[in-house]
Structures are given as C-alpha cells and as structure tokens.
C-alpha cells in the first residue's frame, strides 16, 4: 500500500445555513505533516474532526490508509488515530501513567503500562512524572503527556488541534522541536490545525490555507511564502509578519 495516509475528497459540511466546508479535497501523504491554517471560522478544525468522525460530514469521502472512514466503526477508527486537543484534555482524576496508557488499556493490551512509559520517554517526560496527577504538571508537560497519550497505542496518524496554542513562547518552541523529532523518529503522519503560520512553516511539509470553508491554497511552505496564490494568502502572510 502506497496511497496517501489520509485522502479527503470533495467533503462538505453545513451547520444549518452555515456552510462550514465546501467541496474540500486534501491528500495527506504518509509521513507528511500537513498544517491546516486559517482564521477562526475558516473550517480548519471541522475538517480535522471529520477525519476521525468526531464531525459527521454531509457529502464527499474520506479514506484513512485506504479505508473509507464511513465504513469503519467510529470507536475503532478513533483508537487507531492519535488525537491531541488544545487544552490537553487529560483526565484530571487519573495519574499521568494511566492517562497515557488510555488507548492500549481500552484495547485490552496487557502491556499498556509499559507502552505508556515508552511513549512518555519518546516525548521527553521523565519517568517520575508517571505517578503525578495532571494538575501537578506544567502546561508544557501536560501537552507532552497528551502527545504521549496520542501515540502510546502505536498510532501512526495523529491529529493535533491547536496543540501548543495555550503555551508560552519558550514552551511552545520546545514542544515544536519535540514534535519534529518525534515525527522523524516514529515516522508519524501528522495533521495539524493551527492559526500560527510560523508554527505551520516550522513543522509542516505542506500547508493548507483555508478560507470560509474552501481551500485557498495548498502547497509546501516555501511556495506559500514565495508565491501566495491569492491576495488573501498574501494578506495573511503580511499580518503574520512572514517575510516573502
């Protein structure tokens, strides 16, 4: 199998009269990191959530590693795909080890705890953190734990929804560096929603600029920077202070 990790074909989604996604098509090659960028309301988060069926789209088709997501059991689909929400979403009443071990534990893996320890090491969390409660961790450590949880089940595709948006600049930069290393080391495919163009250019192999439910431009970071396809993209770049 050599097809893309995720293939999104002509997907549309409306909330009542609001058209959140209009005929969107995006391919995410294996091993790539595709960043979905755009302003609030552009549809980037909705598109991300269509991939693991947290959002039910109205039309079009999405395949993950060649399987139509609509033909998969949503629970099994979500366990197979890692997910990192913006606020970490750690369960406050579970210790870090148990949080990270969530998916292997749900799958009944006998070595769930060992897998959790391995995932924690991969995201740079010290073993001593395993017995802490989430509220005892810093914001950066919580997001590392959330990333560890997203890969502890051996997932090769991870969806990240503004994962570092709430962190200070230093922690964000550290986490981005960790993410780059983790992707290479574990040959992960990432789909990253962010409103931070600098983050997108640093992490992504391809950037999808979205505007009002449509794809405005889909290209490698350098191409977007050097050749904005539309005045909107150019304006977005200018506002973010990215030099052409």
């Amino acid at each position, binding site marked *: 199998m050599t097809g893309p990790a995720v293939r999104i074909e002509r997907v549309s989604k409306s909330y009542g009269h609001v058209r959140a996604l209009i005929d969107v098509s995006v391919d995410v090659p294996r091993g790539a990191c595709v960043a979905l960028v755009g302003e609030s309301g552009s549809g980037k988060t909705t598109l991300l959530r269509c991939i693991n069926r947290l959002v039910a789209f109205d039309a079009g088709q999405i395949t993950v590693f060649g399987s139509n997501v609509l033909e998969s059991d949503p629970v099994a689909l979500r366990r197979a795909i890692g997910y990192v929400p913006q606020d970490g979403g*750690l*369960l*406050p*009443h579970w210790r870090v080890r148990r949080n990270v071990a969530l998916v292997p534990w749900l799958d009944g893996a006998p070595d769930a705890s060992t897998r959790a320890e391995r995932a924690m090491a991969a995201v740079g969390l010290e073993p001593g953190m395993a017995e802490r409660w989430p509220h005892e961790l810093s914001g950066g450590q919580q997001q590392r734990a959330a990333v560890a949880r997203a890969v502890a089940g051996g997932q090769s595709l991870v969806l990240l929804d503004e994962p570092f948006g709430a962190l200070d600049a230093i922690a964000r930069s550290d986490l981005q560096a960790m993410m780059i290393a983790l992707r290479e080391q574990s040959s992960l495919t990432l789909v990253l929603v962010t409103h931070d163009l600098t983050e997108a250019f640093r992490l992504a192999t391809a950037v999808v600029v979205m505007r009002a439910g449509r794809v405005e431009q889909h290209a490698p970071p350098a191409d977007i920077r050097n050749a904005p396809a539309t005045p909107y993209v150019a304006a977005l770049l200018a506002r973010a202070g990215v030099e052409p």
Partner: protein
Amino acid sequence: MLRLAAAALWAALLVPNGAAAGLRQAGARPVVVASKPFGESYLLAEMFAQLLESRGIPVERRAGLGATQVAFAALRSGAIDVYPEYTGTGLLAILHAAPMHDAGAVFDTVQRAFEQRWGIRWLPPLGFENTYAIAVRAGTASRYGLRTLSDLARVAPRLTAGFTPDFIGRADGLPGLAHVYGLHFAAVRPLDQALKYRALASGKVDVVDGYSTDGSIARYGLVVLGDDRHFFPPYQAAALVGARLQRDDPAAVTVLTELSGRLSAPVMRALNQRVEIGGESVAAVATAALASLGLTQAPRAVAAAPQTTKPSFTAYLWQRRATLWNETLRHLLLVAVPLVAGIIAGVPLALWLERRRRAAEPVIRAVGVLQTIPSIALLAIMIPLLGVGVWPALVALWLYSLYPIVRGTFTAVRDADPSAVAAGRALGMTPAQVLRWIRTPLAAPGIMAGIRTAAVIDVGTATLAAFIGAGGLGEPIATGLALNDTRLILSGAIPAAVLALIVDALLAAVEWSTTPEPLRAAARERSRDR
C-alpha cells in the same frame, strides 16, 4: 456489621408494635381506634379503646393521626374504624358548608351528609361541646353577676381582655363577637396561648379566650360565659364510625354508643386537667373515667397513681430507653429505605436523562413538583392508596428524596470536565465508557451532595410521618405536643437532631471517599466557602 444493621431495620419494619405497617389481616381484624394529635382526642380515643376491650373486643390503637384531613382520609379509606370528631369541624372543615348556629341542626346536617356520601356514621354526641369559650375569674363573675356574654357586654368597658392573636384577627373571633354582643373592652392585649390562663389567674387581664374543655379552666376555677346569642358554631364531640365497622361489627358500634351523652363539659375539663396539667397518663385517666361513669369495673389501684416526684431528664430517657431504641430504629428505617430506593431510582434516571437532554428538563421539573407538595398533604394523599402506617410514609419520603438525587446527579454528570469528556470520546471511548470512567467519577461529589440533601430532608420529614401512624422519633414529638409534655417532645427531638448530624457526617465521609483524590483539594475549597 452492615448486615446486622440491615437485619435490625427489617425487624423494625416487620415486628408490629402498635403503630406497625398498614397491612390488614385477612380474618377478623381488631377495631382500629384512632385520634387526632391533641390531648382531648387522645383521651377520648383511649376511652373508646378501653371500653371496647372491657367487652372483649380486640382493639388496635392509632393515636395522633395528623389533624382532621389525615384522620378523616384514614376513616374513609377504612384504614381506621373510629375516632372522636367535632360536629363543627365536620361541617366547616370536611363538608366546607356555611356556618350554622344551632347545635341540633349542625348534628343533623353532618349526620345526613356523611351517611349519604361516605357511609360514615356520627354516633349520638358524647355530651359536651369543645367550642370557643370566653372565660373570667370566679371573683369577676360574682362581683359583676356575669353568666353570659350579654352580661359581659355591660361591664366590658371596665375590663382588660387578653386574647390570642389568632382570635383577635379572625372574623369568627373577636371582631364578630364584638359586633354581635356590642363588646368594648378597656384594653385588648395579645397573649400567647400558653400564657393566657396564667395571666388571667394572676389578675393581669380579666377576660381570656379559650376552648370550652381546656383543663386550665378547671384548674383555675374559671367561669365560662354562656354564648346566649349563639355566636360560636357548635362543636359537639361524637364518635365518628367508618362503614366497615358498621357492617362487620355492629356490636362494637353499640358498645361505643354507651358513652353518648355521658360526658359533660365540666367532666371533660377535669379529665383534660389530669392529663395536661397533672401529668397523669392518658390510659390511667381513661380507666378512671370509665369506671366512675359505671361503664367498667373499678380500676386497679396502681394504674391511676400519679407520679409524685419527677425523675431527672436523663433518668427519664433511661426509663424510656427500650421505646426510644425502637423509635430510633423505626426512624432509621424511615430514612434509610426511602433514601436507598431514591438512589436506586434516581441515579439511573438521571444518567438516562443525561443521554436524552430534551426529555431531561420536563422530567426533572415534574419530579420537582412533588417536592412542592407540603409533607402533611403528601402523606394524606397516600392514605387512600396505602392506608395508614409505615408504607405510605416510606413512599412519601421516597418521593421527596428523588428530586435532589435526580437534579444533583444530572447536573454533576452533565457538567463533568468537558475537555476530559471530549478527549475521551476523541480517543475512542464508547459513550458507556465515557460515562463509566469520566463523567461518573468526576460527578461523584455532586451526586453525593444530592444524596446528602435527600437524606437530611428525609430525616426531618420522617418526624412528620408519626402523624400518619408510621412511628419513629416523630411519635414522642407528636404525642408530647398533644399532651403538653416537654420531656416527651425532647426525648424525640434530641435523638432526631443527633441522628440528622450523624447521617450527614456519615454521608460527608462517603462523599469524601468517592471524590477522586486530585479533586479533593478543590472540594475542600468549596466547603470552606460554604
């Protein structure tokens, strides 16, 4: 330990102890004699009961049923067979008819209406009225030659009256009376029920209102002035007999009529005085009264001996310990069973509603409406369905426990950390797993808070269950209130308060242990803020 406690609770439920469950025996059942919760009613009911027993008719006592509506509902449903009632109450409170002033007409009206509507029979009146009474000191009466209210009107401008605030305000109290007789006092002082006779006896006031058979009238040798213009509605006392007893045991009804016309107001006043002021037991006074009327053999000498020295309160509690223990067990049963049933029904209902949000608000509001029904009314509603005794109380208390449990559980589960819930779902938890592993543990403190509220409501409301014959610690409170016996009241009220504190502390500990460890600090903050 737990099993032992459970066994004890069941024993308390199953062993009949006078106020036991409202279950009927299949064969001949004893005549169920009831009373309303005040001294004279207790005494008359006890006289009915002893009179029947003296003729070999088995009797079950259900004293102190909570006021007219409850006692009458119980009689109508057949849960009880006879209780003492007053014709004026039958006319005004049960038939809701217009007031009438002729005693014979009132009796004829209630007799006909009760017979037609419910097959319930008023036996011929006992011989006295317990109506509003205006009383003066004997000295005042003789100095001014007072025998009637018309006499009083002549000299009223020279006298000071002390009336209860209720009497001063009611249209059928002072305003109407003053209008009919042209009464104008030098001054009218509002006086508390408990104080007015003492104020009259000590000369602080010259005229008071009261009830014509109050024991205090006899105690202070007061003169009740005749209502020569028939202003006060007649309240003749009589036995009210249910349809079942008339049909199944006419002999018992005949025995009860032996008391008709035998009790005059002075006699009744003297009997009330012995109970309410002298502190003699209801049973002893009833025995003596029946004997002196020649209806039964002379009592055994010991029965009537009044207590000369009062034991200390602790000694008194020690004397009552066996009864107190039974009442406490019964009270625990009245709290525990409805609470457990409330949890069994309420928590799953709330969890179900949390999954069907649209149904939630209407259902929870409907459960909330139950909460707004006054407890005595809810207990009274239960009587036609479940009779009197423990069962209607259990059901009513169960209904009361539902709302806090459903509301608390629903809100707590709904509001459980939304980002943790979203993450659980996004990582592949089934809805059931989200509920089991995220919502429920995070909601545990809120669920327990609802259960605690329900428990405290049940402990408090359970004392009212005594008014429908369910027993428990409300029993000494109700009886004590009726017989003006403070020690009896306290012997129920203090253990009930202690029980409430223990139950709350116990549930607080459970709440603590069910709160996930990292959330405890937050819970501690919250309870400090409270």
